[in-house]
């Protein structure tokens, strides 16, 4: 597993709420994602998928085990990450384009040049809006956009500072099926042109198989990685591929593993 861009090695994490014992979210979780690779994490709900993203981004610290990004232990928020969540989390007092510019006001080296280079940065944001199909909506406020549009803007925000790593926590979970499939294509395009390392947490097995190079399957809580699948399909992938026999087989295999993990948890 050495030489991996993102590495979790035998990680434990307990959420403490007040003075009780706390919830053991992860126990002995290990995974490795190569640089520029697109990884997906699937598993039963509540298995600690999102926790893994929080560990990788440095929002949480592990109780035990190693968490490394780019061969360095994670000891606080990693600045090279872009994040998008299931909830678009747009700041409601800023227009869509100002929301997308937020990372540039925080992350160096953009931060110190923000005032001089604002026009250039706005141009960059406009270009991103165009790629995700949001051209013309730059000056709208978040509540004036549909859920899908907000999620597109949220993707732009995750990408604006050209992060080496993209952490996506069920970003399409709240969208209707058609919008979701549109956004899969957009995300694949963006990934193919920029090649960031991506970790996508999702409930949707088709989504995982369409987008990822490698899929990690997690057990029920306390979560650990119980299987990893290489996804062999060539890129760019199309929606038609998702109906091919091989693809469907992969999804059945994933589904079986997850339902086994759930039954095991129920039996225990």
């Amino acid at each position, binding site marked *: 597993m050495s030489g991996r861009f993102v590495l979790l090695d035998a990680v434990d994490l307990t959420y403490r709420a007040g003075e009780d014992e706390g919830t053991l979210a992860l126990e002995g979780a290990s995974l490795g994602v190569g640089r520029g690779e697109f990884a997906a994490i699937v598993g039963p709900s509540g298995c600690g998928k999102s926790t893994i993203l929080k560990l990788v*981004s*440095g*929002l949480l610290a592990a109780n035990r085990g190693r968490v490394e990004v780019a061969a360095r232990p994670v000891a*606080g*928020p*990693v*600045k090279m*990450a872009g*994040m998008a*969540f299931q*909830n678009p*989390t747009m*700041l*409601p*007092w800023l*227009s869509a384009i100002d929301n997308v510019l*937020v*990372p540039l*006001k*925080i*992350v160096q080296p953009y931060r110190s040049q923000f005032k001089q280079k604002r026009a250039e940065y706005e141009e960059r944001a406009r270009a991103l809006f165009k790629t995700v199909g949001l051209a013309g909506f730059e*000056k709208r*406020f978040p*509540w*004036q956009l549909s859920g899908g549009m907000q999620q597109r803007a949220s993707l732009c*925000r995750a990408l604006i*500072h050209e992060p080496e790593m993209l*952490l996506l926590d069920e970003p399409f979970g709240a969208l209707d099926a058609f919008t979701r499939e549109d956004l899969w294509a957009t995300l694949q395009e963006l990934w193919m042109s920029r090649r960031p390392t991506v970790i996508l947490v999702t409930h949707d097995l088709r989504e995982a198989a369409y987008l990822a190079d490698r899929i990690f399957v997690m057990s029920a809580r306390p979560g650990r990685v119980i299987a990893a699948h290489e996804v062999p399909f060539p890129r760019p992938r199309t929606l038609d591929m998702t109906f091919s026999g091989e693809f469907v087989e992969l999804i059945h295999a994933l589904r079986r593993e997850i339902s086994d993990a759930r039954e095991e948890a129920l039996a225990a």
Partner: protein
Amino acid sequence: MRRRSLARRSLPWAVIIGMFLVWEALCRLFNVPEFVLPLPSQIFEVLITRWEALLPHTTQTLMTTVIGFVGGVIVGTLIGIAIGSSRLVYEAMYPLLVGFYSIPKVAVVPILVLWFGSGTVPAVITSLVICIFPVVVNVATGLATTEPELEDVLRALGASKRDILWGVGIPRSMPYLFASLKIAITLAFVGTVISETVAANRGIGNVMIIASSNIDVPLVFAGLFILAFMGIALYALFALLESRMTGWAMRKTEFSM
């Protein structure tokens, strides 16, 4: 549609004028003596004929209130930020604040007079003190209820606590601050007038206390009218500012920066 909105807008005026008409009619009908309840027409007459004498007192009260209000909002915002952004400060300071706020402000004025003498200073301080509490509570609530997801967006980028406070916490609590300003400005008048009636030789509160000892009841009521008018005017000013500054919280389509 347009006509209806015009009718809507004139509704509060109709209510106010209607109240005065009923008041006038009832007083005349039952022959209520002037020293119990003067006629609205008498009160307006006082306002018009003696405006030159009333004006300096009005500006005195207005200035005192505005200075106290501005001071109270600044102090209240700072305490609110401290309390809202730290659980520890919240738990440590809240009981003291509630206790402090429960003290009737009239009881504080004599102490202030003892320290600063009578006049403008105790009035400013009274109105300042009375404004603080609603501002503190609202700003602290705004900060404390900020969605952690919004903060995560910045935290994941390596933003400092200060960045998060300025980037998310403070803008998020602006609607709460503005809501509290409308309450605080009316309370500030209460503070000023309390102090002016107890220990001052200028201001509307002072005018009213002297008029009442002279049993010049129309003048007392004229003082009340001036206070009510200033209260409404400043409330409206802050309501307007609120909709301009924090239209996003009310989802106004015409809102833009």
